[in-house]
């Protein structure tokens, strides 16, 4: 991936991410989130992870975002009326975020192997999706099944939770 | 065969919980348990030391020598007999409940099952786990069906014994960790051989010794960790008080003989405070049981508290036998576990019956009961005389051995002094027992006590079973010692 595209998509991703935080209107936040994830999936593709990039769009942009928007519409949420941020939380959030960033920089600074460029890929005999599939169904079969059960439990849970006469 | 013995009460309890059966099932289960225990008793080969009738599975987890394994040796056989006898009497003293009687009966059987399992277990893990299994229904029964301040008593015993179990667990872990990695095992027999080979250096024995002694000590109500016992027994329903004080409390002592003596024999002689050794410390604590708690017992004004405290006091004698570290004392201690279990169970059975009649157990409200309930009076007298160490009963034989153990060659002068002081406890126990007997059964009958009805029918046999066994043990202690001796010799080696 060319560095220009990387910088472009990264900048966009962070900008939309910031907009998620800063927007008063939940709908706008949700749409910014979708945009941010689209840029993220572009980064994935740039890292030769095509399958992940695609399901990122399918699952997040396609399914999760619709769900978010649906709920926002359902609850008919308005933009926040009260003051956006109180000072205490601004200071706290800012301090933690900035502190975290500084530490990250410090770590990256001393993380010498991270300064190498990416090694080139060999010629693949199989495409990316098949490779992920093989890994998933051979090495990680049991966790995969478990996740399946988890999703099942989650869907049952959702149905139970959304029953009207919730005790 | 041993697993069957364990399954009888568990299956019956499960059936009762599920709503099948009735009280007859509980009685049948207890009798079956006794019959099977007796069958074991007579088929057991006394001459051989070590475990017999062993059954064990493969390790349950790869890489850890942890398996379900059961077996009996002389000591556990005696304890099993105690369990079976007390269980039989206890189920005959189940209270008449209007609802959820099955739940009550099943829980009582579960206590018995837990005790049986703990005594059968040949594996450290199950040894510990079965005891905990027995404690759960104990807490529930005291909390739900107790009398007086049952909630407070149930919480107190729950927390206190919980702490004891945790300290004990820490001690067990510490014990295993003190062994080299290659020889770590949960098998009691293998552990015993390791102990005999002095695998743990003397200096490293002292910490697990303390943890185990305090852990077991809390379970046994060793002074000064005794204050849970009397209130709990006073509040507990009759069968629970019988089973806990008679059987379950002996688990701690059984553990002392099974674990502490064989694995940590050198710890007893380690100085812990100035020139005083761990043994001296234990002697001081047990004198606290005998003299301090003995005097506290004298000051009690209610029969159930008096019996509860007296049972705490007699733990001191068993500890005295343990602390003597020789065959005479240890045999005395083990036989005394058996004898004390039977006598205190009989006492609680009688006091529970009186509570059902009168509603109160205050000495100043009772009197002259021998007139209307002579059978109860005789049973109480026999159990009381047994517990104060009257010749003819097993308690005397075992206390004699304990005292002789304290004076055996090799005894330190501190030990001899402690034994003489402990001997004074015999006078103290006579004081409170006779005062109680006089207050309840002798003197002018009170207006209510003249109307009590005596036990009838099969309950008489169930109750008489305990003092009669005590008599047997007192006249022929040699018969019981034949079972105990090889095991105890191995434990002391």
């Amino acid at each position: 991936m060319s560095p220009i595209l990387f910088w472009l998509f990264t900048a966009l991703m962070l900008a939309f991410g910031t907009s998620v935080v800063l927007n008063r209107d939940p709908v706008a936040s949700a749409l910014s989130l979708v945009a941010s994830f689209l840029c993220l999936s572009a980064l994935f593709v740039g890292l030769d992870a095509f399958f992940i990039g695609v399901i990122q769009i399918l699952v997040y942009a396609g399914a999760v975002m619709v769900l978010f928007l649906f709920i926002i519409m359902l609850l008919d949420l308005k933009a926040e009326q009260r003051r956006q941020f109180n000072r205490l939380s601004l200071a706290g959030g800012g301090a933690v975020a900035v502190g975290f960033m500084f530490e990250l920089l410090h770590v990256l600074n001393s993380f010498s192997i991270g300064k190498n460029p990416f090694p080139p890929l060999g010629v693949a005999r199989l495409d990316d999706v098949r490779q992920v599939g093989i890994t998933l169904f051979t090495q990680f079969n049991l966790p995969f099944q478990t996740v399946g059960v988890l999703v099942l439990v989650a869907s049952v849970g959702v149905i139970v939770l959304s029953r009207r006469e919730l005790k | 065969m041993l697993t069957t013995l364990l399954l009888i009460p568990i299956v019956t309890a499960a059936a009762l919980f599920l709503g099948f059966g009735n009280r007859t099932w509980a009685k049948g289960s207890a009798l079956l348990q006794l019959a099977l225990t007796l069958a074991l008793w007579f088929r057991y080969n006394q001459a051989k030391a070590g475990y017999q009738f062993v059954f064990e599975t493969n390790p349950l987890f790869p890489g850890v020598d942890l398996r379900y394994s059961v077996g009996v040796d002389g000591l556990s056989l005696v304890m099993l007999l105690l369990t079976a006898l007390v269980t039989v009497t206890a189920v005959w003293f189940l209270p008449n409940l209007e609802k959820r009687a099955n739940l009550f009966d099943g829980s009582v059987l579960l206590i018995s099952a837990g005790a049986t399992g703990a005594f059968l277990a040949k594996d450290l893990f199950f040894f510990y786990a079965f005891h905990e299994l027995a404690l759960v229904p104990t807490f529930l029964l005291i909390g739900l069906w107790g009398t007086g301040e049952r909630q407070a008593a149930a919480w107190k015993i729950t927390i206190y014994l919980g702490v004891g179990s945790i300290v004990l667990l820490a001690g067990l872990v510490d014990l295993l960790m003190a062994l080299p990695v290659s020889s770590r095992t949960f098998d009691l027999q293998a552990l015993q051989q390791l102990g005999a080979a002095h695998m743990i250096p003397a200096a490293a024995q002292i910490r697990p010794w303390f943890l185990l002694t305090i852990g077991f000590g809390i379970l046994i109500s060793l002074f000064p960790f005794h204050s849970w016992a009397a209130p709990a027994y006073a509040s507990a329903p009759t069968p629970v008080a019988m089973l806990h004080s008679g059987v379950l409390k002996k688990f701690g002592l059984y553990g002392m003989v099974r674990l502490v003596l064989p694995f940590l024999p050198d710890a007893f002689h380690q100085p812990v405070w100035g020139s005083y050794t761990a043994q001296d410390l234990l002697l001081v604590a047990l004198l606290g049981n005998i003299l301090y708690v003995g005097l506290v017992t004298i000051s009690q004004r209610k029969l159930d508290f008096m019996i509860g405290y007296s049972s705490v006091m007699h733990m001191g004698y068993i500890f005295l036998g343990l602390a003597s570290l020789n065959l005479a004392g240890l045999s005395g201690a083990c036989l005394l576990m058996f004898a004390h279990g039977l006598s205190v169970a009989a006492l609680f059975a009688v006091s529970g019956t009186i509570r059902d009649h009168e509603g109160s157990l205050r000495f100043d409200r009772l009197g002259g009961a021998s007139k209307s309930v002579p059978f109860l009076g005789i049973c109480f007298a026999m159990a009381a005389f047994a517990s104060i160490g009257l010749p003819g009963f097993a308690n005397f034989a075992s206390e004699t051995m304990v005292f002789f153990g304290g004076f055996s060659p090799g005894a330190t002068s501190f030990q001899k002094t402690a034994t003489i002081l402990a001997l004074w406890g015999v006078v103290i126990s006579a004081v409170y027992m006779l005062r109680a007997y006089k207050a309840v059964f002798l003197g002018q009958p009170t207006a209510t006590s003249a109307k009590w009805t005596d036990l009838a029918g099969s309950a008489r046999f169930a109750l008489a079973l305990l003092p009669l066994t005590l008599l047997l043990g007192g006249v022929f202690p040699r018969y019981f010692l034949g079972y105990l001796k090889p095991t105890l010799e191995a434990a002391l080696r």
Partner: protein
Amino acid sequence: MNPLTLNHYLLASGLLFSIGFAGVLLRRNIITIFMCLELMLNAANLSLVAFSRYHVGADGLPNYNAQVLVFFIIAVAAAEVAVGLAIIVALYRARQTTHVEDLVSLKF
């Protein structure tokens, strides 16, 4: 322009994470907070994929284990969103609010 290194991606991932975390701390609307959580999850995904690309095996392929992990994260996140939103709906029904400062019933 310098070639891209692993650190670039890690830095991007870290920034995204920080933004998400700041959002969790700052926003009052519980749905927005939820979105910020999604941001943080995806920040983690980004670094995982970057590491996957970085560790090229002897056969010249990226390390697919990391991608499988991302796959799991996405699956679990989807389930989480579903359950979380259902809880929010139930909460809204009960309290008529999605404002975290109104939800303090777990206070001592």
